[in-house]
């Protein structure tokens, strides 16, 4: 399963997009759930810690209340609010107005009982006798020093563990999700490979036998028929080449050589001349001389053939094709049916066909793309629906 080994080539961009959105969604959902659980866990830990602190704080509060009481009794002689280095405190009257405070903050939630805020614990108690008019007393102590660090370390540890487990599960899920798709592609590839084998010999036999015939000795009608047979055989032969390339491309070693593009293009136009004729296509070309490219001959041929055969295939009867070779590019323009704007991106994907009335497997442009990629050529596809397509290969 040659093709399956290489995901990059195998998975088409649309499927990759699906894959990416699946992964994104999965990761997002996982993190959301984890965050929620972490939030709950944090709350639990915090409440436990506060519960442990409650008794100590209650005792400290009672001490402070005793001091407030003695101050209340001695008011007039004594006016210093009692302070303690172990905690800060504040008192509030029954309208929640602050009477005195040594707290770091002025925002205290007196309706709570005990709570944690900015690494400090606040403990609120209602007095039975309102010494100094104080109905509520608030104590503020720093939270146990390593507490939050410990909790966060625990959270991070567990979080990472669960996340990695979920990632592994996600990976298997993905495999499950992709299996039918992978199987379909593999099936198609295998089918093509098998067909290809059986196609080679007969097509070659036809073509070589036609070549051996001397067309001039035959009369008009027979020679016309022979020409048609030639065209048909060449179409099959082309298809055969495409399929071999597709199935074996990763095994074929490139044999790069310097190629005179003008010569090659003329040769290819000659090769397709019968096809041009049969569709009554007007061919116009201007090929500059002395333009060379170092590239594998077979691959360059394949690339040009595919673009030309598309230009013919999708052209109308009596349409036109224009081929221009300039120092930096080859441009092939046709007057075919064109491709819809938002489908252009898909044009290079394997098995994509826009018009099922015309034969083909939808592999031509994907081959063009893969060859262009190998040699860092730029392929630009400009198309206007019902007017024509321009393919420009530049380097």
């Amino acid at each position, binding site marked *: 399963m040659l093709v399956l080994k290489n995901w990059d080539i195998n998975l088409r961009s649309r499927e990759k997009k699906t894959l990416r959105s699946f992964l994104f969604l999965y990761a997002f959902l996982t993190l959301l759930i984890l965050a929620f659980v972490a939030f709950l866990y944090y709350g639990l830990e915090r409440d436990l810690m506060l519960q442990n602190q409650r008794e100590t704080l209650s005792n400290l509060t009672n001490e402070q209340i005793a001091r407030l009481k003695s101050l209340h009794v001695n*008011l007039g002689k004594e*006016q*210093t609010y009692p302070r303690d280095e172990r905690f800060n405190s504040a008192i509030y009257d029954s309208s929640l107005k602050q009477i005195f405070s040594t707290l770091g903050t002025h925002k205290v939630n007196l309706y709570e009982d005990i709570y944690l805020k900015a690494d400090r614990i606040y403990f609120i108690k209602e007095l039975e*006798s*309102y010494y*100094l008019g104080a*109905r509520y007393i608030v104590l503020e102590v720093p939270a146990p020093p390593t507490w939050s660090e410990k909790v966060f370390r625990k959270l991070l540890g567990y979080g990472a563990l669960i996340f990695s487990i979920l990632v592994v599960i996600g990976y298997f899920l993905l495999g499950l999700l992709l299996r039918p798709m992978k199987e379909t592609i593999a099936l198609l590839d295998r089918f093509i490979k098998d067909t290809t084998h059986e196609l080679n010999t007969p097509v070659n036999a036809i073509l070589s036998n036609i070549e051996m015939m001397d067309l001039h000795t035959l009369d008009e009608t027979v020679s016309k028929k022979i020409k048609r047979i030639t065209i048909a055989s060449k179409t099959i032969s082309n298809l055969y080449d495409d399929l071999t390339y597709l199935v074996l491309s990763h095994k074929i070693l490139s044999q790069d050589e310097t190629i005179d593009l003008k010569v090659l293009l003329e040769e290819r136009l000659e090769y397709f001349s019968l096809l041009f004729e049969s569709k009554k296509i007007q061919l116009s070309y201007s090929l500059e001389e002395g333009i060379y490219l170092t590239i594998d001959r077979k691959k360059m041929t394949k690339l040009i053939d595919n673009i030309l055969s598309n230009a013919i295939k999708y052209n109308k009867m009596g349409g036109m094709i224009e081929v221009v070779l300039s120092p930096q590019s080859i441009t092939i323009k046709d007057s075919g049916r064109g491709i819809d704007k938002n489908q252009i991106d898909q044009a290079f994907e394997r098995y994509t066909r826009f018009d099922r009335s015309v034969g083909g497997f939808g592999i031509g442009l994907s081959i063009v793309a893969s060859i262009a990629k190998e040699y860092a050529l730029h392929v630009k596809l400009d198309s206007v629906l019902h007017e024509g397509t321009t393919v420009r290969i530049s380097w």
Partner: protein
Amino acid sequence: MVKKVLIFTLVISCLGAKTGVYEKNCIPCHEDMAVKIDKFFYRYLLKYSSEMEVKNAMTKYLKNPKAENSILVDGLINRFGVKKKTTLRDTELQEALDTYWDQYQVFDKLK
């Protein structure tokens, strides 16, 4: 001349020391009592906490004093006897209580 000086000092003393309702009405009567008026204040504070509630409770008591409403312990109320209803008008009583509050409240006093 002597007359003028006399009138002047009289006016000054009138404007000066005992001007408010509190000073004129409450202090003279309370000054001589064994338990000072600040003690009463702190007892109210202990029971009612906020300014509003303290003032409300005092108003209620001063307008209609009853032994069972007093914040004094039984021994003291028996010794002093329940005071008479205030003769002040509402606004005057309010003013007196405001002064009373300002004098003894703890908000600005604690250090």
